[in-house]
């Protein structure tokens, strides 16, 4: 039976603020998660037609109405339109001033943590590399925990190779295999693989081709101890401001189809990022809250991994969708916008370290 929840009251927001020591913000929907560097109204005559709705959406929500402008493509937890959600920056600063830890998580494997942190800081939210979690970093971190010493075959883009290399892992493939083809005119065409490959790591790859599929498949099939790592398996993502594009789930499922092996998933909604974050920063699970705008990723992720969840309505999920009887994913609390948490400020005891 679905328990219907109500929007968080000031008391509930205050309780959340006081109780949770680690706030994990969803970064997906950030302007730079698009390949363009800024999020603008689409001006050049491409007007998005009425498109699909997110799975499970039963009523026209935020997306359908905002298709015309494309601005909502940048909508998320921290972003709205071409700027930050009003109050988001201030709330994050408030959290920090009360010694709360803040993290930013994205499933996008194509940009490194450093890039994400730099962009956040540039837009007014100070962030360190260690506070950013990408699914590419998760893959690299996982391999490190296994004491991985071999090479990794990468089906993915530069950001993924960067994170693996930063972890000291030698990579084969990635951008170097863009445009590589099998020569079918040769008498005996073949794809030879590096025998030192001990893992195939897959993230979004706009340059996917048969050569890479064959290379990855051969690594996995010829060597049953070769690991199969998926950064994320999202079926789609907002890679341009006007449309959703096939996501990393495509590349992963392609390799499952030919290798008949199942990957280990590191990004959301697997627990690895939360495990790593809690272990590294000595936070207990019950003191952690995930804040996001997507029920089927962020909120489900937190719920499935024993972490409290807060849904915001500045992104893809509308109140109607959240409260619909068909929705089975319930966050612990929800607010219209991250900025709404600022109402707790006057209710808080004075911080010992005033910023």
């Amino acid at each position, binding site marked *: 039976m679905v328990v219907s929840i109500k929007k968080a009251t000031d008391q509930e927001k205050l309780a959340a603020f006081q109780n949770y020591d680690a706030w994990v913000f969803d970064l997906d929907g950030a302007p730079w998660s*698009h390949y*363009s*560097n*800024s999020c*603008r109204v*689409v*001006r*050049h005559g*491409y007007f998005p*037609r009425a*498109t*699909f709705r997110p799975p499970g959406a039963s009523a026209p929500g935020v997306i359908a109405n905002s298709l015309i402008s494309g601005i909502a493509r940048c909508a998320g937890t921290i972003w709205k339109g071409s700027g930050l959600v009003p109050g988001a920056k201030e709330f994050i600063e408030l959290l920090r001033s009360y010694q709360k830890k803040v993290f930013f998580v994205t499933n996008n494997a194509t940009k490194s943590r450093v890039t994400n942190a730099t962009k956040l800081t540039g837009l007014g939210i100070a962030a360190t590399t260690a506070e950013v979690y990408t699914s590419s970093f998760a893959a690299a971190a996982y391999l490190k*925990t296994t004491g991985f010493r071999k090479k990794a075959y990468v089906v993915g883009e530069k950001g993924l190779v960067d994170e693996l290399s930063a972890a000291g892992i030698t990579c084969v493939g990635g951008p170097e295999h863009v445009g590589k083809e099998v020569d079918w005119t040769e008498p*005996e*065409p073949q794809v030879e693989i590096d025998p030192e490959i001990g893992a195939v790591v897959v993230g979004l*790859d*706009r*340059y*996917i081709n*048969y050569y890479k*599929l064959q290379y990855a*498949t*051969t690594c996995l*099939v010829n060597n049953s101890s070769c*690991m199969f790592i*998926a950064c994320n*398996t999202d*079926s*789609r993502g907002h890679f*341009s*401001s*006007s*449309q959703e*594009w*096939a*996501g990393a*789930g*495509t*590349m*992963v*499922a*392609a*390799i*499952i*189809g*030919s*290798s*008949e*092996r*199942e*990957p*280990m*998933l*590191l990004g959301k909604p*697997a*627990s*690895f990022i939360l*495990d790593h974050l809690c272990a590294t920063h000595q936070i207990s699970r019950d003191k952690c809250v995930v804040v996001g705008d997507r029920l089927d990723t962020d909120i489900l992720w937190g719920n*499935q*991994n024993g972490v409290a969840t807060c849904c915001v309505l500045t992104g893809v999920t509308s109140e109607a969708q959240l409260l619909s009887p068909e929705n089975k994913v319930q966050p612990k609390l929800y607010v219209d916008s991250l900025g709404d948490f600022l109402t707790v400020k006057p209710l808080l005891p004075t911080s010992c370290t005033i910023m």
Partner: protein
Amino acid sequence: MQVMLRSLPSTRAGARPVRPARKMTPCLAASRSIPRATNEQKIDLLKKVECFIFDCDGVIWLGDKVIEGVPETLDMLRSMGKKVFFVTNNSTKSRAGYMSKFQSLGLDVKAEEIYSSSYAAAAYLESINFQKKVYVIGETGILEELDLKGIRHLGGPSDADKRVTLKSGEFMEHDHGVGAVVVGFDRYINYFKIQYATLCIRENPGCLFIATNRDAVTHLTDAQEWAGNGSMVGAIVGSTKREPIVVGKPSDFMLKNISATLGLRPDQICMVGDRLDTDIMFGKNGGLATSLVLSGVTTEEVLNSPDNKVIPDYVLSKLPDLLTVKESAMVAA
């Protein structure tokens, strides 16, 4: 009917390796030993079966060489009035395209006797009176078969060089008249095709998602195994979260289409193949008689292993073994 469905990777909590579950049944007292078909059994087979469906690789030919005795066997069957079909899950060529392979091997066949998965896709669309357009991920074989059925199509090899750059505000248009996406083996798969197919399936109401086959492996050369259409189909399953209608083996569409065309009951048709989990299973699921040949990938050891649950009706070392009863069978016919 067993259709090889693949679910999306499980979203498991925890960083434990995810391995496919293997059901190992307890080893029975002694492994069995299924004998080769006796002469009586062969005569019986030739008496009751009116149509033989052959998998090609491992049954008719091995790589680029026809198995010795096969042409004579086919002649015998034809002279007995039996119908023959050659089935292949490979969609890259049309039936007419495969003719040249058969002819180069000295096999006299008609295009109508070849049942490729490229043909199966077109035949399926014809069977549902499909009137819209098709977006094709695949090679020329599918396009040629669609042309022969008068079905309009886009995509295919002409999208091989298309690139997605994802510049600021990039938006991919797609044809809203596409009512089906057909995915076949495609050595020129790319992100453009994946995205185009995804848009059609997601946004065109009622758009069908059809796969010629889902074989993980395809045999293009002898030196190594090659990633098969299972990966192209997997890609589209991954982006749409929809499962396809499979028209090739092991789906029974081909069998139903053949038996309907010939007006035969399933038990009057025999599936002859070298793979237990596809050919023989395929035949059994369709209610056909089944005959395993040991001239391809399956060994006697695998057949008799306690882990094997698929028991064919007949076992031959190779198809030309039927020639040993040629005279008796011809007399009886």
